[in-house]
Protein backbone atom coordinates (compact mmCIF):
# COMPACT_ATOMS: atom_id res chain seq x y z
CA UNK A 1 0.00 0.00 0.00
CA UNK A 2 2.81 2.41 0.90
CA UNK A 3 4.62 1.32 -2.28
CA UNK A 4 1.68 2.31 -4.49
CA UNK A 5 1.29 5.65 -2.66
CA UNK A 6 5.01 6.36 -3.05
CA UNK A 7 4.85 5.60 -6.77
CA UNK A 8 1.82 7.90 -7.15
CA UNK A 9 3.57 10.71 -5.27
CA UNK A 10 6.77 10.26 -7.30
CA UNK A 11 4.86 10.56 -10.57
CA UNK A 12 3.02 13.65 -9.26
CA UNK A 13 6.28 15.33 -8.25
CA UNK A 14 7.89 14.36 -11.57
CA UNK A 15 5.01 15.93 -13.49
CA UNK A 16 5.28 19.02 -11.27
CA UNK A 17 9.00 19.31 -12.05
CA UNK A 18 8.23 19.08 -15.78
CA UNK A 19 5.82 22.01 -15.45
CA UNK A 20 8.44 23.96 -13.49
CA UNK A 21 10.94 23.34 -16.30
CA UNK A 22 8.38 24.61 -18.81
CA UNK A 23 7.93 27.82 -16.81
CA UNK A 24 11.72 28.11 -16.45
CA UNK A 25 12.21 27.89 -20.21
CA UNK A 26 9.26 30.11 -21.14
CA UNK A 27 9.70 32.94 -18.65
CA UNK A 28 8.54 35.56 -19.64
CA UNK A 29 10.14 37.71 -16.91
CA UNK A 30 13.33 37.09 -14.95
CA UNK A 31 11.43 36.88 -11.65
CA UNK A 32 9.35 34.05 -13.18
CA UNK A 33 12.52 32.10 -13.86
CA UNK A 34 13.80 32.66 -10.30
CA UNK A 35 10.45 31.43 -8.95
CA UNK A 36 10.57 28.36 -11.22
CA UNK A 37 14.11 27.51 -10.01
CA UNK A 38 13.03 27.89 -6.37
CA UNK A 39 10.06 25.56 -6.92
CA UNK A 40 12.30 23.10 -8.76
CA UNK A 41 14.57 22.92 -5.69
CA UNK A 42 11.62 22.32 -3.34
CA UNK A 43 10.32 19.57 -5.64
CA UNK A 44 13.79 18.00 -5.73
CA UNK A 45 13.72 17.85 -1.91
CA UNK A 46 10.33 16.14 -2.13
CA UNK A 47 11.74 13.63 -4.64
CA UNK A 48 14.69 12.81 -2.32
CA UNK A 49 12.33 12.25 0.63
CA UNK A 50 10.13 9.97 -1.50
CA UNK A 51 13.17 8.01 -2.71
CA UNK A 52 14.20 7.40 0.90
CA UNK A 53 10.74 6.12 1.84
CA UNK A 54 10.83 3.81 -1.18
CA UNK A 55 14.28 2.42 -0.37
CA UNK A 56 13.79 2.44 3.40
CA UNK A 57 17.15 4.10 4.01
CA UNK A 58 17.85 7.41 5.74
CA UNK A 59 21.16 8.14 4.02
CA UNK A 60 20.22 11.09 1.81
CA UNK A 61 18.61 13.42 4.36
CA UNK A 62 21.79 15.51 4.51
CA UNK A 63 21.49 16.02 0.75
CA UNK A 64 17.89 17.22 1.12
CA UNK A 65 18.88 19.57 3.95
CA UNK A 66 21.78 21.00 1.93
CA UNK A 67 19.50 21.43 -1.10
CA UNK A 68 17.00 23.39 1.02
CA UNK A 69 19.74 25.71 2.30
CA UNK A 70 21.50 26.23 -1.05
CA UNK A 71 18.18 26.77 -2.84
CA UNK A 72 17.17 29.50 -0.41
CA UNK A 73 20.55 31.23 -0.58
CA UNK A 74 20.50 31.03 -4.39
CA UNK A 75 17.01 32.54 -4.63
CA UNK A 76 17.93 35.40 -2.31
CA UNK A 77 21.16 36.02 -4.25
CA UNK A 78 19.31 36.18 -7.59
CA UNK A 79 16.72 38.60 -6.16
CA UNK A 80 19.41 40.72 -4.54
CA UNK A 81 21.20 40.94 -7.86
CA UNK A 82 18.00 42.08 -9.61
CA UNK A 83 17.27 44.62 -6.88
CA UNK A 84 20.68 46.20 -6.38
CA UNK A 85 22.85 45.07 -9.30
CA UNK A 86 25.18 43.57 -6.70
CA UNK A 87 24.99 40.64 -4.30
CA UNK A 88 27.29 41.65 -1.43
CA UNK A 89 27.43 45.42 -1.15
Amino acid at each position, binding site marked *: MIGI*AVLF*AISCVGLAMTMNLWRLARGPTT*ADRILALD*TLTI*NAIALIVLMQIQQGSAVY*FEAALLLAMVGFVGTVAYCKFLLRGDIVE
Partner: protein
Amino acid sequence: MMDVGPFEILISALLVIGGVFALVGSWGLARMPSLMTRLHGPTKVTTLGVGSLLVASMIFFPAIQGTYSAHELLITLFLFLTAPISANMIAKAHLHRQGRHIDPNPMDDIAEGLPDTGLGTGWATFQGLDTDQLNIPR
Protein backbone atom coordinates in the same frame (compact mmCIF):
# COMPACT_ATOMS: atom_id res chain seq x y z
CA MET B 1 -7.22 -8.33 1.29
CA MET B 2 -3.82 -8.01 2.85
CA ASP B 3 -3.25 -7.00 6.42
CA VAL B 4 -2.90 -3.21 6.59
CA GLY B 5 -2.05 -1.44 9.82
CA PRO B 6 -3.25 2.03 10.82
CA PHE B 7 0.21 3.52 10.32
CA GLU B 8 0.32 2.31 6.71
CA ILE B 9 -3.04 3.93 5.94
CA LEU B 10 -1.92 7.18 7.58
CA ILE B 11 1.43 7.23 5.75
CA SER B 12 -0.19 6.41 2.39
CA ALA B 13 -2.81 9.13 2.83
CA LEU B 14 -0.13 11.69 3.71
CA LEU B 15 1.96 10.64 0.71
CA VAL B 16 -0.98 10.97 -1.72
CA ILE B 17 -2.00 14.35 -0.23
CA GLY B 18 1.58 15.62 -0.46
CA GLY B 19 1.98 14.48 -4.07
CA VAL B 20 -1.30 16.09 -5.14
CA PHE B 21 -0.41 19.35 -3.36
CA ALA B 22 3.01 19.50 -5.05
CA LEU B 23 1.36 18.88 -8.42
CA VAL B 24 -1.32 21.55 -7.89
CA GLY B 25 1.27 24.11 -6.76
CA SER B 26 3.37 23.61 -9.88
CA TRP B 27 0.24 23.62 -12.03
CA GLY B 28 -0.56 27.04 -10.59
CA LEU B 29 2.97 28.17 -11.45
CA ALA B 30 2.52 27.02 -15.05
CA ARG B 31 -1.03 28.27 -15.54
CA MET B 32 -1.55 31.57 -13.66
CA PRO B 33 -1.51 34.74 -15.81
CA SER B 34 1.00 37.03 -14.02
CA LEU B 35 3.87 36.77 -11.56
CA MET B 36 1.98 38.13 -8.56
CA THR B 37 -0.62 35.37 -8.97
CA ARG B 38 1.99 32.76 -9.85
CA LEU B 39 3.73 33.38 -6.52
CA HIS B 40 0.78 31.88 -4.63
CA GLY B 41 1.08 28.35 -6.00
CA PRO B 42 4.69 27.41 -5.26
CA THR B 43 5.14 29.37 -2.04
CA LYS B 44 2.04 28.10 -0.23
CA VAL B 45 0.75 24.93 -1.88
CA THR B 46 4.07 23.29 -2.78
CA THR B 47 5.56 24.06 0.63
CA LEU B 48 2.52 22.48 2.30
CA GLY B 49 2.81 19.43 0.04
CA VAL B 50 6.49 18.94 0.87
CA GLY B 51 5.59 19.38 4.54
CA SER B 52 3.02 16.59 4.20
CA LEU B 53 5.60 14.30 2.56
CA LEU B 54 8.07 15.06 5.36
CA VAL B 55 5.43 14.25 8.01
CA ALA B 56 4.84 10.93 6.21
CA SER B 57 8.60 10.26 6.35
CA MET B 58 8.65 11.25 10.03
CA ILE B 59 6.00 8.61 10.77
CA PHE B 60 7.40 6.01 8.35
CA PHE B 61 10.93 5.67 9.75
CA PRO B 62 10.09 5.12 13.47
CA ALA B 63 6.88 3.12 12.85
CA ILE B 64 7.87 0.83 9.95
CA GLN B 65 11.68 0.87 9.85
CA GLY B 66 12.33 1.23 13.57
CA THR B 67 14.93 3.96 13.09
CA TYR B 68 14.71 7.60 14.06
CA SER B 69 16.32 10.77 12.70
CA ALA B 70 15.63 14.44 13.32
CA HIS B 71 16.53 15.49 9.79
CA GLU B 72 12.92 15.72 8.61
CA LEU B 73 12.15 18.15 11.41
CA LEU B 74 15.12 20.30 10.39
CA ILE B 75 14.10 20.30 6.71
CA THR B 76 10.48 21.16 7.58
CA LEU B 77 11.54 23.96 9.89
CA PHE B 78 13.97 25.38 7.34
CA LEU B 79 11.52 25.19 4.40
CA PHE B 80 8.67 26.77 6.36
CA LEU B 81 10.97 29.55 7.57
CA THR B 82 12.51 30.35 4.19
CA ALA B 83 9.54 30.03 1.80
CA PRO B 84 7.89 33.36 2.82
CA ILE B 85 11.24 35.16 2.75
CA SER B 86 12.10 34.02 -0.77
CA ALA B 87 8.55 34.85 -1.96
CA ASN B 88 8.91 38.34 -0.47
CA MET B 89 12.29 38.79 -2.18
CA ILE B 90 10.91 37.68 -5.58
CA ALA B 91 7.92 40.03 -5.24
CA LYS B 92 10.24 42.90 -4.29
CA ALA B 93 12.50 42.28 -7.29
CA HIS B 94 9.45 42.10 -9.57
CA LEU B 95 7.99 45.38 -8.21
CA HIS B 96 11.37 47.05 -8.58
CA ARG B 97 11.58 46.05 -12.25
CA GLN B 98 7.97 47.11 -12.86
CA GLY B 99 8.80 50.54 -11.42
CA ARG B 100 11.69 50.76 -13.86
CA HIS B 101 9.37 49.73 -16.74
CA ILE B 102 11.28 46.49 -17.33
CA ASP B 103 9.12 43.64 -18.73
CA PRO B 104 5.65 44.93 -17.76
CA ASN B 105 2.76 42.44 -17.82
CA PRO B 106 -0.76 43.80 -18.54
CA MET B 107 -2.25 41.15 -16.24
CA ASP B 108 -0.55 42.80 -13.25
CA ASP B 109 -2.58 46.03 -13.75
CA ILE B 110 0.60 48.04 -13.19
CA ALA B 111 1.94 48.00 -16.73
CA GLU B 112 2.21 51.81 -16.85
CA GLY B 113 4.38 51.87 -13.71
CA LEU B 114 3.78 51.67 -9.99
CA PRO B 115 0.89 53.80 -8.61
CA ASP B 116 1.36 56.67 -6.15
CA THR B 117 1.84 55.48 -2.57
CA GLY B 118 -0.37 58.30 -1.19
CA LEU B 119 2.06 58.97 1.67
CA GLY B 120 4.14 61.75 0.17
CA THR B 121 7.17 59.47 -0.05
CA GLY B 122 8.07 57.19 -2.92
CA TRP B 123 8.27 53.42 -3.00
CA ALA B 124 10.72 52.04 -0.48
CA THR B 125 12.46 49.95 -3.13
CA PHE B 126 13.73 53.15 -4.80
CA GLN B 127 14.87 54.86 -1.59
CA GLY B 128 18.51 54.03 -2.30
CA LEU B 129 18.31 56.09 -5.50
CA ASP B 130 19.72 59.28 -3.95
CA THR B 131 22.96 57.67 -2.85
CA ASP B 132 23.29 56.13 -6.30
CA GLN B 133 22.99 59.57 -7.92
CA LEU B 134 25.61 61.03 -5.57
CA ASN B 135 28.16 58.58 -7.01
CA ILE B 136 29.24 57.33 -3.60
CA PRO B 137 31.94 54.71 -4.26
CA ARG B 138 31.18 51.25 -2.90
